C-alpha cells in the first residue's frame, strides 16, 4: 500500500469536510441546520480574517468594515435600487475590495500596534458613516430586505434563498469555494511568501520581495472574502444593520480564528461553530453566559494554546495546512 502524501491527505480531508457538511443538510434537525447555515457564512468571514491575521501576521481590529461593506453593498442595492441578487452580490464584493484597497494602502504604512489602531479607527469611521447616512441605511435599526427579492436567478429558474435547504446549500457552496481558494492560496508560492513575511519581514525584503504589495494583496483578498460573507449574510438572512459594522464584529472573527487555530484552513470553521454552541447552550441556562464563555476560553487556551486545529496540527497531524 502506498503512503498518502501530505498533499493528498490534505485535499482528501477538505473534500471530506465539504461532503460531511453536505450530508448534514439532510441529517441535522431543523434548528441546527439553520445554525450551520449561519455558521458557514460567518466562517467565511473568519477565513477571510485568518488570511490577514493568521497567515500574514496582520492583526487587524477593523475587519467589521469589510464584512459590512459586503453587507451594505448587497443590501442597499437590493433595497433601494431593486437589483437582483447576482449583481447585488457583485456590488457587495466590489465594495469590499475597494474599501480593503484604500484602507490597506493607508494602514499598511504602519505595523504592529499602530496597524491595529489605524484599522480600528477606519472601521469606526465606517461604522459611524452607516449611522450618519441613516436616511438610506436606517442606521442601527437597519433594513429588512423583502423576501420576494431574495431569489437567485438561473437560466433554468430561480432559487428561493429564504428556503432553509436552499440557504444551507448556498452557504455551503460559498464556504466550499472560499475554502478551496484559501487552500490553494496557502499552498501556492504566494501563500508561502505571506507566511515568510509573517515570520521575518526584513529577510523577505532583503530577498527582493515587495513586502508592501504582497501584504496589500493579502488585505484585499481578505477584504474580498469578508465582503463575500457580508453580502451572503444580507441576501440569505434578509437583514442589514449598523450593528454588523460595530467593533464587536471586528473582534469576533479574531476570537473565532484564535479558538479554531490561526493559520489553519479549517480552524475558522471550528472556532465559529464552537463559539456559537458555547453561547447558545450557556445562554439557555444562565444570564451569566458570558462568564461561561470566558471560562471555556480560558480552558481552550490552557489545553489548546494554538487553537483547536492549531494544537491538533502541532501534536498529531503535522501535515494539516
Amino acid at each position, binding site marked *: 500500500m502506498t503512503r498518502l502524501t501530505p498533499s493528498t491527505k490534505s485535499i482528501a480531508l477538505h473534500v471530506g469536510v465539504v461532503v460531511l457538511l453536505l450530508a448534514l443538510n439532510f441529517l441535522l*434537525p*431543523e*434548528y*441546527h441546520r*439553520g*445554525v450551520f447555515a*449561519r455558521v458557514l457564512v460567518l466562517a467565511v468571514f473568519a477565513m477571510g480574517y485568518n488570511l490577514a491575521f493568521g497567515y500574514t501576521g496582520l492583526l487587524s481590529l477593523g475587519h467589521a468594515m469589510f464584512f459590512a461593506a459586503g453587507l451594505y453593498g448587497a443590501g442597499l442595492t437590493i433595497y433601494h435600487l431593486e437589483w437582483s441578487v447576482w449583481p447585488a452580490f457583485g456590488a457587495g464584493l466590489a465594495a469590499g475590495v475597494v474599501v480593503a484597497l484604500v484602507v490597506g494602502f493607508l494602514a499598511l504604512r504602519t505595523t504592529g500596534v499602530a496597524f491595529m489602531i489605524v484599522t480600528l479607527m477606519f472601521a469606526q469611521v465606517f461604522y*459611524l458613516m452607516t*449611522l*450618519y447616512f*441613516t*436616511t438610506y441605511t*436606517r*442606521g*442601527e*435599526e*437597519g*433594513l*429588512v*430586505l423583502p*423576501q420576494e427579492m431574495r431569489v437567485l436567478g438561473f437560466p433554468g429558474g430561480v432559487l428561493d434563498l*429564504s428556503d432553509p435547504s436552499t440557504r444551507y446549500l448556498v452557504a455551503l457552496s460559498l464556504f466550499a469555494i472560499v475554502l478551496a481558494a484559501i487552500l490553494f492560496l496557502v499552498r501556492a508560492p504566494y501563500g508561502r511568501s505571506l507566511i515568510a513575511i509573517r515570520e521575518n519581514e526584513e529577510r523577505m525584503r532583503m530577498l527582493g520581495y515587495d513586502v508592501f504589495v504582497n501584504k496589500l494583496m493579502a488585505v484585499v483578498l481578505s477584504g474580498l472574502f469578508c465582503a463575500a460573507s457580508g453580502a451572503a449574510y444580507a441576501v440569505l*438572512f*434578509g*437583514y442589514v*444593520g*449598523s*450593528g*454588523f459594522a460595530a467593533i464587536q464584529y471586528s473582534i469576533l472573527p479574531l476570537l473565532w480564528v484564535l479558538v479554531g487555530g490561526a493559520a489553519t484552513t479549517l480552524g475558522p470553521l471550528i472556532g465559529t461553530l464552537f463559539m456559537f*454552541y458555547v453561547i*447558545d*447552550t450557556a*445562554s*439557555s*441556562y444562565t*444570564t451569566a*453566559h*458570558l462568564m461561561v464563555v470566558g471560562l471555556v476560553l480560558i480552558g481552550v487556551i490552557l489545553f489548546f494554546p494554538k487553537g483547536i486545529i492549531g494544537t491538533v496540527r502541532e*501534536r*498529531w497531524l*503535522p501535515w494539516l495546512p
Partner: protein
Amino acid sequence: MSENRKSLINLNSGLTRRSALKGLGAAAGLVAAPGFVRYGQAQSSEPIKIGFQCHRTGIGAAYGRWYERVTTAAAKRINDAGGINGRPLEIIIEDDGTDPKRGAEVVEKFANQHKVDLVYGTLFSHVVVGSAPAAGELKIPYYVVSEGYHVASGKMNRYCVQPGITDVKAQARSMAPWIAGNLGKKVTLVYPDYAFGHDHRDFFTPAIEAQGGQVVAKVPIPPTETSFTRYFPQIPRDTDVIYHVMVGPAVLTFVKEMGEFFGSGGPQLFGFIDSLEAVDIASPGLEFLEGSHFWEGMPRYAQSDQPDYVTAYREAVGIDENGASVNDAKDVSTAAHMFGCWETLNIIKASMEACDYKGPDDRAAMIEATEAMTEMEAGPDHPQGKKLFNGKIHQVFGEQSISQVKDGKLEVVHRTSIEDGAYEPEADYTAMSF
C-alpha cells in the same frame, strides 16, 4: 516528532475509566441540553407555548428585566383565570443579548426547537427588524412590544404585529398640540443622530407645524458624544421649548450640562421618558429637571386618581408608588413601556380564543383574528388606557400621558386623545399573503 509520539502515548494511557465516564457524562449532558432536546407537537391538552425574546443582557437589560417580570405576572393572571381555551400558558425565555443577529437566531430556536406557538416581547427596534425576516420565513406570529414605527411602516411582514404599545410616530405627533398650546410654539429639537432620533425629528416636525408652531433648530448629537455643552450655543435665543430625546448612559451628563448652561431662566424642557426609564428621577444632577415635562406611555408614579385596575396591575407586577420594585426601592421600573407586555399577552389570549386556536396550523387564523380587532376598552386587560387597533398596519393607537416633574416625582398633567396621535396608514398587511 518524538514529542508528538509522546503526547499520543500519554493521551492513550490517560484514557482511564474515570475519564471515559466523564466523557460519557458530558455527552449525556449535551444531549439533555435544551439545544438538543426534540420537542413533540403540542397536543390540545398541552400548554400553549410562547417564546419570549428577552433582552436579558446587552444594552436593553434594564428593560428586559422588567419586561420579564410583567410577562410573568400577566401569564400568572391568565393561568389563574383558566388559561387560553382551557390550556395553560407557558412562557419560554431566550436571551437575545439585545442583538439583531442573535434575535433572528432566537426566533429560529423558538420555532424549530422549542416548537412554540408564537414569539413575543421584543423591545429594541434593531432586534425587531433583525428578527422579522426569520419570523416571516418560519411563518410564526411575532408580537412585538417595541414602540418603533417599523411595524406600521409596512416594511415587516404579515406575521409581525404590535398590538400592545403605540409607535413613535403616534407618540411624537400626539405631543404637538399640548406643547404648542402650553409650552410654546418655537421648538428646538435635540436628538441622537441615528434612527431613533431621526424618527422623532421627522414625525414631530410636521406635527408641530400643523399646530402653527415651528422647529427653529435641529441639533443632532453624534452617538459617540459624551459631553454636550458645545452643542447648546446652537439653540436659538428665541426658543420656547427644547424637545430632547437623548438616550443611553450619557443622558445624565446631558441633563446636567443643559441645566448648568441655562440655569433657571432657560427655555421650557420637554423630553421622552425613554431617556430616564429605570433611572431614579431623584438622582444627583437631575434636579435641573424640576418643573420640566415628559411623555410617559404609562405613569411611573402612582397617581391620586388612578382607577382600581391600575392599582391592581401595579400590585401584580410588583411596583411601589414611586414605580420602583416593591423588593428594592432602587430598582426603578420601565413603567412607561412595560405595560405593553401585559396588554399584548391579553391580546394574544383574545386572538387565540377568537379563532379557537388549536396549534401551529392556526397561526394564520390567529393573525387574522388580531387584525380584526378594533376598539379595546381600558380595564384590567388594558390598564394603560383605551386603544384602537388598525389591522391594516398591525399597529395599535392609544392615549398618552404628559407628566411634570414636581418635587422630584412625575405627576400626570394631561392625557392626549387617540386622535392626537392618529395618522394615515401607509401600508396594508392584510393584502399580503401568509
